[in-house]
């Protein structure tokens, strides 16, 4: 039964991907990209990867769509018409892509069956993680354990990638627009004259933020963690910005705070590692943080997850505001 469902979803995924490539209206392709992410999230979910599904749904289908729409508002929603004589490159590209696709399909014949417990990937370190997580951390979500403790270096790197991406976008788009344009956008932006979305939005925003906090602090026991929580809280604030206007959202969560969250989150993560070193362990070895190693691990994971959540939330909101603050260049 689950195979039929998966096959159906993957077929829809291919149809959506083809539609994204073929459409010339960029607005349509943004919405299709959002649908693609949602389908992908469901696919992840039926593969039992609830953490990844949550991230994909929150970031891919939620925040990215809004940022794409902000970018479209700055540039225009029609694809640039192709000139004659540019089609030769397309044919070469088509041949290369077709060849690579055949190669990849051929190589999948050697793959183990989906979910095969004897597959090499499940025989390497995965059994060790599964066995040691209850002993070292004493909580059920192995994904969080791997993400934040066993492979803490990788996650630290990811947080710095988020940090670098945020700084890069802010450098390109500029942080402070001229005063005059800000005045215009205060008057015009938001959905203040639309009563129904506003009322429903106001009703939902507290619950969205609450759910974000739940995913943040319940990440050790259920699917979730810093990345998902940061994205969810950012979604709540972006919804507020769309309803009340960008200036109101900036008044609620100023730019200083956002930048502080990005920098502070990355710093918090790094400094936990340094504290571990100062207390006699190795970098990001949380066992030394408390008298009991299990408590130490849990404390360390809680703090670094908070750092991840802060960094992701701050980065997404900074990028959103950087796009929203720009005036359209005509």
């Amino acid at each position, binding site marked *: 039964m689950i195979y039929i469902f998966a096959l159906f979803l993957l077929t829809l995924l291919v149809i959506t991907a083809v539609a994204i490539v073929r459409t010339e209206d960029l607005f349509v392709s943004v919405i299709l990209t959002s649908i693609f992410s949602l389908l992908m999230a469901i696919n992840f979910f039926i593969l039992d990867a609830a953490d990844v599904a949550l991230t994909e749904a929150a970031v891919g289908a939620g925040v990215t769509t809004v940022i794409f729409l902000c970018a*479209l508002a700055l540039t225009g929603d*029609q694809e640039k018409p192709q000139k004659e004589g540019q089609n030769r490159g397309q044919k070469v590209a088509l041949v290369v892509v077709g060849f690579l696709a055949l190669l990849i399909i051929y190589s999948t014949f050697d793959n183990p069956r989906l979910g095969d417990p004897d597959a090499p990937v499940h025989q390497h370190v995965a059994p060790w993680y599964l066995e040691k997580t209850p002993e070292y951390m004493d909580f059920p979500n192995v994904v969080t354990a791997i993400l934040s403790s066993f492979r803490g270096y990788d996650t630290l790197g990811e947080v710095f990638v988020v940090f670098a991406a945020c700084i890069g976008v802010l450098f390109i788009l500029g942080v402070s627009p001229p005063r005059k344009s800000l005045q215009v956008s205060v008057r015009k932006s938001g959905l203040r004259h639309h009563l129904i979305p506003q009322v429903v939005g106001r009703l939902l925003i507290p619950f969205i933020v609450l759910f974000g906090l739940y995913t943040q602090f319940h990440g050790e026991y259920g699917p979730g963690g810093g990345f998902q929580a940061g994205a969810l809280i950012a979604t709540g604030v972006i919804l507020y910005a769309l309803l009340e206007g960008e200036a109101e959202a900036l008044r609620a969560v100023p730019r200083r705070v956002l930048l502080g969250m990005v920098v502070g989150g990355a710093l918090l993560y790094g400094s936990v590692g340094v504290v571990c070193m100062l207390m006699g362990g190795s970098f990001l070895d949380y066992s030394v943080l408390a008298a009991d190693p299990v408590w130490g691990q849990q404390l360390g994971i809680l703090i670094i997850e908070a750092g991840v959540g802060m960094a992701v939330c701050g980065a997404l909101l900074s990028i959103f505001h950087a796009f929203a603050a720009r005036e359209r260049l005509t």
Partner: protein
Amino acid sequence: MIDLALDIMSWILLTVGGACVLIGGIGGLRLPNFYTRIHAASLTDTMATLLIFVGIILQSGFTLASLKLFAIMLFLLLTGPTATYALANAALLSGLKPGPGRSGLKPDAGTAKDKTKENAPE
């Protein structure tokens, strides 16, 4: 006996809900213009959500899962019609007049940008 009655009830609800989704889908494809289409599509947001979720809740009984399903149902019942309203309102503001036939399938390019902003909260 009670179990059988609950099963029958829930299967009736699920079947009717599924039919509502189907009708909504057919309507979304077959009806002539934008407003009639979202009218059909909103059937899946409200009627189908209500019927299918009540059907599943009857299946799961008095458990935590039922409470969660109820919360999801409430969420969908609040957001779905709001999204439909926002969509219709955005279309109206961007100059798409409601009317019979295939009139104004696509708003002209100049006003399409406003639509972009209005649609975003969904």
